[in-house]
């Protein structure tokens, strides 16, 4: 029956796949995404496979490794269908119990269920967990139901029906019209309307055109493209083929980071299977349309995620941006019209075709339709990948879905848009998240990184961190970016070390302006954003560093001191033995003293000092007390406490 040669044959294939499956048969979906993988999901998978054999359950239960489910904080995550039971933090030792209780006896294992941190209630079903309840997982939601290495799973869920609809019932012009009306904007960062880009590319002169997928995700803390590519590669592929048909391209490129080995693996398997089934190659679904895809692995440069640099890289040269006052959709790879979209943008296309532009537009805001996947990380209770309709407020994302800030700390800011984005303070949290609103705040949507920061974060240090990243990743071609970022970084380093001078803020602002206005590519033009937004919302922190040599959050190492309170020290030797710099002196019954010259401010002493004594303190708002004489005896306490 393969390859599939018509829309009818595809439907027959889908029916036969579904008919071959027993909906009542239990199936276990174990998350094997990046987060769960790091928590050891592969060991859990092996345990499941072995235990299923041992209990003679083979054939009676399905087991699959899937892509990321989203709740990475609680990994490894297991979902058992058809009862829809969700287990979190599953360990190898839990596997026999799950199989015995849930699969053989149909009961949930209470202790593995998610516990609501507020009500302390145990929640059985994934959809009732607050983290998922407020999401709308349009693009990301199929991950638990799909084994990325089996195309049949995707087909069973309606996969490739959009492609078949497009190839058999729609003209390229109609598809373009649908995408245009859906007003889907590029998910890679800039938010350029995809329909407009497609049209420019379709209408650009030239017989040979290309489509390309940008999977060169490089923002620190962002992994949504990775998880989508790992978990549901066919969704992206289907969008890409539809795009190729619309634009008139017969060759496509998928540019993917070499640091994403599982994504590359799953993609390659997906391409092979798609070809086998007749969704790629010659005469796709009997329509006469030909299309092939080349996988190009990036060599690890952040700037290669910029469209023109990505294309230079595909051409086999070093990934460096080129001046592009003529759009890449007109002059792209080998100077041919190239339509480059982000992973998530392509994944939105099948949904738009299946559900229609009007339905799609009903999600989100007026200017930004659909949903957006964010990677919610940092100082937030539920870290993970979240997909919400555009227009949800930052507060809802951080507090309702993210579950707020851990350890009772106060929220300080959320950084959106990766290193080129900006920090948004508490009083702007009720702003609805979409492309235009975030830009108004001086930040941007970016590819969807969201880093939550609590009160213990120094905003100057944060800006310094991002500039350091950008300085490393700048290609060095144009002078504003190469020199300007370096100058700003140098000034920020000085400020963090307490060597800031009056006038530094003005220099920062002036240089930021040059870098922003004059840089060649988007890496440079947005590089100053972390500095500019922190200056806009947290200027007093800069001033405090410069004028009083104080770091209000107590982060900048040069501006803090660790001190052992002589009256509280019980001379237990713990800090002394664990100090990597051997900076602490003292002996049994003799007060421990930190040698400030030797101390590297790692904070181990503070962490290790027993809470009962609580003798180590971090000092940044007052002078260091006079040191006590070496050999001072610890004061006697009542009997029983040493």
């Amino acid at each position, binding site marked *: 029956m393969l390859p599939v040669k018509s829309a009818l044959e595809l439907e027959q294939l889908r029916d036969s796949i579904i008919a071959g499956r027993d909906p009542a048969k239990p199936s276990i979906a174990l998350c094997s995404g990046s987060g769960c993988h790091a928590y050891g999901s592969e060991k859990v998978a092996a345990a499941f496979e072995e235990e299923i054999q041992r209990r003679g359950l083979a054939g009676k239960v399905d087991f699959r490794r899937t892509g990321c489910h989203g709740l990475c904080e609680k990994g490894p995550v297991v979902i058992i269908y058809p009862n829809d039971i969700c287990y979190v933090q599953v360990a190898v030792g839990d596997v026999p119990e799950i199989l015995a209780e849930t699969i053989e006896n149909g009961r949930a294992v209470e202790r593995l269920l998610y516990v609501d941190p507020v009500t302390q209630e145990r929640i059985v079903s994934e959809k009732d967990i607050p983290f998922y309840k407020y999401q709308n997982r349009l693009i990301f939601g199929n991950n638990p139901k799909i084994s990325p290495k089996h195309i049949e799973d995707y087909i069973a869920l309606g996969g490739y029906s959009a492609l078949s609809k497009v190839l058999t019932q729609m003209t390229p012009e109609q598809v373009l019209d649908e995408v245009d009306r859906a007003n889907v904007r590029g998910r890679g960062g800039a938010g350029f309307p995809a329909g407009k880009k497609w049209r420019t590319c379709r209408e650009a002169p030239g017989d040979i055109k290309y489509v390309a997928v940008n999977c060169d995700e490089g923002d620190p803390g962002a992994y949504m493209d990775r998880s989508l590519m790992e978990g549901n590669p066919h969704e992206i592929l289907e969008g890409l083929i539809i795009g190729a048909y619309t634009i008139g391209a017969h060759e496509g490129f998928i540019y993917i980071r070499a640091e994403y080995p599982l994504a590359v693996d799953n993609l390659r398997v997906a391409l092979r299977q798609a070809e086998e089934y007749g969704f790629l190659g010659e005469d796709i679904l009997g329509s006469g349309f030909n299309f092939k895809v080349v996988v190009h692995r990036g060599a690890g440069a952040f700037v290669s995620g910029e469209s023109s640099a990505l294309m230079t890289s595909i051409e086999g040269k070093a990934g460096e941006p080129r001046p592009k006052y003529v759009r890449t959709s007109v002059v792209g790879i080998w100077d041919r019209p190239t339509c480059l979209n982000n992973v998530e943008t392509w994944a939105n296309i099948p949904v738009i075709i299946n559900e229609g532009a009007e339905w799609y537009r009903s999600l989100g805001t007026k200017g930004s339709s659909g949903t957006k996947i964010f990677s919610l990380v940092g100082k937030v209770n539920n870290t993970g990948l979240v997909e919400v309709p555009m227009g949800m407020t930052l507060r809802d994302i951080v507090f309702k879905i993210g579950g707020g800030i851990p350890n009772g700390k106060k929220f300080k800011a959320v950084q959106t848009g990766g290193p080129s984005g900006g920090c948004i303070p508490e009083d702007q949290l009720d702003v609805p998240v979409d492309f235009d609103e975030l830009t108004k705040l001086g930040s941007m949507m970016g590819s969807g990184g969201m880093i939550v920061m609590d009160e213990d974060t120094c905003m100057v240090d944060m800006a310094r961190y991002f500039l350091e990243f950008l300085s490393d990743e*700048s290609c060095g071609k144009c002078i504003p970016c190469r020199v300007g970022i370096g*100058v700003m970084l140098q000034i920020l380093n000085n400020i963090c070390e307490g060597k800031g001078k009056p006038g530094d803020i003005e220099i920062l602002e002036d*240089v930021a*302006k040059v870098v922003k206005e004059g840089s*060649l590519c988007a890496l440079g033009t947005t590089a100053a954003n972390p500095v500019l937004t922190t200056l806009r919302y947290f200027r007093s922190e800069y001033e405090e560093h410069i004028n009083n040599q104080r770091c209000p959050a107590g982060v900048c190492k040069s501006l803090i001191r660790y001190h052992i309170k002589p009256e509280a020290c019980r001379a237990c030797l713990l800090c002394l033995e664990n100090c990597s710099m051997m900076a602490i002196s003292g002996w049994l019954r003799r007060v421990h003293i930190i040698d400030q010259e030797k101390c590297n401010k790692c904070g181990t002493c503070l962490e290790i000092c027993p809470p009962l004594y609580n003798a180590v303190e971090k000092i940044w708002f007052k002078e260091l007390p006079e040191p006590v004489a070496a050999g001072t005896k610890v004061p006697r306490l009542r009997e029983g406490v040493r």
Partner: protein
Amino acid sequence: MSEVTLKINGEEVKVEEGTSLIEVARKAKANVPSLCYNRKLSPFGACRLCMVEVIKDGKSRLVASCVYPAEEGIEVQTESERVVSFRKGLLELMLAAAPDVKVIQNYAKRYGVEQPRFTIEKQNICVLCGLCVRYCAEIKQAHAIGFQSRGTNRKVVFLPQIALKICPDCKECLSVCPTKQLPEIYREQVELLLENNAGDSASS
């Protein structure tokens, strides 16, 4: 190619569509500063000194005039307040990065930039304009020079496999360097290597 009409510094000019704005400016006798532009070589857009203000559909923005193609109806300002303020800022950066380069000093003087307000630890006389790289690749088609590394570590290098063979008889690139640093780089990377090689073979 068809002809387009645009305004440059208030003056209307007719040029071929797609001509770079820096060429249009030259035609209109406006002197746009630049380090990395040479009309015989492909434009590079790296030094950013040639940024000019373009007003199109009522929106103003700064563009690199060496790569921006002439379009119908646009208005170009080569020395507007916005342009001058940008160039001042850029020249301050350049002066801090390469204080001893004559051409940069001259431009700084023209725009009234004196002592930069900051110093840069990692100075580099070579401004990485890429004229030598492009000259070698495009005019000589020899590809003996290239860029190495990225960011502040980026530098111009002669590729020994090619350079040792052909550079001693050519050296034409040395004169295109605006900072006069290339002869030094050539000396370090090629001549010394040749001398060492000669010494090695003589002693063996």
